[in-house]
């Protein structure tokens, strides 16, 4: 299984926002979305990645892109993680049924029971414009890769 490729419509999926409400394909329409899949809340490596993206969040906004963190942790864990990090990037939970959205996007790590570290850029029409998947979860994608993908849209 590998991450969905550019040009593919985003699969049907349901994630949970921090307040328990649903986040689905319908929420992709009309905005440029970057889904940041990370293995686990509170793991040290994930921490650095989200902190860096937070630091340049104003530049993502200039590009019209909205970032979301996605993991299989529960919304409660994600909220605690977000507060601990001091980041504002909204977190979306793929907790139950566990990993269903990650599988749909081709980023579920079966043995680890977690998302692969992956980035998926989805256009306002719900079509994947770019995707990235780490060779292993320890590989951290720089913010530059997302800015490259955003620049390549035009």
């Amino acid at each position, binding site marked *: 299984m590998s991450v969905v490729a550019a040009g593919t419509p985003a699969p049907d999926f349901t994630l949970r926002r921090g307040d328990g409400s649903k986040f689905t394909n319908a929420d992709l329409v009309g905005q440029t979305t970057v889904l940041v899949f990370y293995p686990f809340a509170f793991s040290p490596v994930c921490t650095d990645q989200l902190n860096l993206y937070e630091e340049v969040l104003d530049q993502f906004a200039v590009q019209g892109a909205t970032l979301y963190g996605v993991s299989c942790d529960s919304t409660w864990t994600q909220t605690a993680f977000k507060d601990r990090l001091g980041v504002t990037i909204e977190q979306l939970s793929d907790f139950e049924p566990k990993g269903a959205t990650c599988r749909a996007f081709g980023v579920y790590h079966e043995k680890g029971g977690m998302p692969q570290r992956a980035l998926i850029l989805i256009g306002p029409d719900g079509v994947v414009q770019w995707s990235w998947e780490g060779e292993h979860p320890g590989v951290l994608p720089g913010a*530059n890769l997302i800015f490259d993908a955003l620049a390549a849209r035009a």
Partner: protein
Amino acid sequence: MSGSLGSAPLPPLAPDDHVLGAGDGPPLIVYADYECPYCAALHARLIAGDERWAFRHFPVRSKHPRAWAAACAAEAAALQGAFEPMHMALYADQARLEDPHLWERARRLGLDVERFDADRRSEQVLARVRRDFESGVRAGVVTTPTVFDDGALQPDR
């Protein structure tokens, strides 16, 4: 922030890079911040060794809330010719990075404290720190410290 943060090669050593250490080989390039404990550990190894390194700022505020202020303090000291002593003084005590601690360091180093305080809040200094940070983002730096040796990113330094 200004301009694109898309990928770009690591900028080569510039005349106003802060090069520290002894020796005459080409320096390592280190992206780090003053509040990061792993950076302090690397700093301790570097000052005990025989390498040269260029220090570039990579402050990430959600991780280290005082990292930007500390980086700006080092650059404000640089405007009075005291980058290196301020750099050393910042790493010497990471638990004290609040404003009064920064003023105290400036006083101890014999700087013009009023000028130091104005400079550390100035657009010039902010732009200098931001230049380092953005060059790091564009070169793919995510975490601190990140070390480049001869232009190549060295994992696990």
